[in-house]
């Protein structure tokens, strides 16, 4: 309140010159709000669903293919990841053992942060599984049985390779980049029907998939991150 009072001596800000900052009648901007105020705030799922429909339509304009559409959704989520990293670290509960929030410096704590804290903040539940890929040491897999963003979306047959959770993949990429772990890319893939198909070929009847929307987020770290991880592992361990 006092900060904006001091600046108000220069006169009211020009409309549009402040880049979209709203100045309601009580002269308090969004920067004056307490950061923890929206901690337990609720949001209508339908409101997000309609907004997401428009985001997908917007991304679909003049796009050349499914990969391009996923890339655009990824770009839409990236800035969210950067901001959420700082916000969630700021809000992380402080205890006597760790007086200041600890920024994750190793890969596994970072992934735990994403799978637990970030997921709980966004979807009110932790991610379902976190695995390291056997084929590629630098690739990690995060599973979500029922991504909230895909809840109302039924893909048409010609777009069955698309997974709109590419938006959430963008958020994850933003968090990793912001924390200093550069990635080659984070992508979202639907594995619900594959697993059912594999199980079904063994039995006689068609197996109904337990989680038809199950999505895996493939996080691939850059080689320098893996090098650093190895050095830290050797010296720290």
């Amino acid at each position: 309140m006092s900060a904006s009072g001091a600046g108000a001596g220069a006169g009211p800000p020009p409309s549009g010159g402040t880049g979209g900052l709203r100045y309601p009648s009580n002269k308090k901007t969004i920067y004056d709000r307490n950061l923890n105020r929206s901690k337990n705030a609720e949001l209508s799922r339908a409101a997000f669903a309609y907004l997401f429909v428009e985001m997908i339509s917007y991304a679909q304009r003049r796009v050349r293919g499914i990969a391009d559409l996923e890339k655009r959704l990824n770009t839409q989520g990236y800035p969210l990841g950067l901001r959420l990293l700082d916000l969630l670290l700021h809000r992380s509960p402080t205890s006597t053992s760790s007086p200041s929030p600890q920024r994750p410096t190793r890969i596994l704590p970072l992934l735990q942060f994403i799978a637990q804290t970030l997921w709980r903040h966004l979807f009110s539940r932790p991610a379902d599984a976190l695995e390291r890929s056997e084929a590629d040491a630098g690739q990690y897999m995060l599973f979500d049985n029922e991504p909230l963003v895909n809840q109302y979306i039924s893909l048409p047959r010609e777009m069955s390779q698309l997974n709109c959770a590419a938006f959430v993949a963008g958020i994850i990429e933003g968090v990793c980049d912001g924390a200093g772990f550069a990635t080659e890319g984070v992508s979202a893939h639907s594995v619900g029907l594959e697993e059912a198909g594999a199980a079904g070929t063994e039995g006689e009847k068609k197996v109904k998939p337990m989680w038809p929307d199950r999505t895996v987020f493939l996080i691939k770290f850059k080689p320098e991150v893996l090098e650093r991880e190895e050095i830290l592992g050797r010296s720290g361990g």
Partner: protein
Amino acid sequence: VVFVLFIISKAGGLIYNREFHTGLSKLTSNDYLMLAGSFHGQACTMHAITKQLCPNPPTPANAAANAPNLAPTPFNSRATGIEVLESSHFRMQCFQTLTGTKFLLFTEPQQPNIDSMIKKIYELYADFVMKNPFYTVEMPIRCEKFDRGLDGFVKVNR
């Protein structure tokens, strides 16, 4: 037991039809479209047929007195379209949304809880059809989650 569900768009085109009961006589897809068209005519407000079938609404006694203050709303004496059609073999209930989409549900004559069923179907429609980015409004409905939702809901009611 629920027999069939039709959904008709505002323009009168059939955008969804689903049979839940085997053993009904088979209709070609053209037959379905014609049926939907005729139901649209019956269910539509201000349509020629229902307007003439509907008894004249009583004119408000103080219309002249209030005329300078309020414009007469078109909704007070509007004839709503057909709502229920009952026969010895089936019962048809029509639910019309505020935007003109009509849900026609055909059930057995003694089916209880039809209102709550229609409300639930409308809820499924609002969720899995309207919030689907790949669905164009007023086009035929091809949403897998809507079908699955109906499956789970109607089979349970059997």
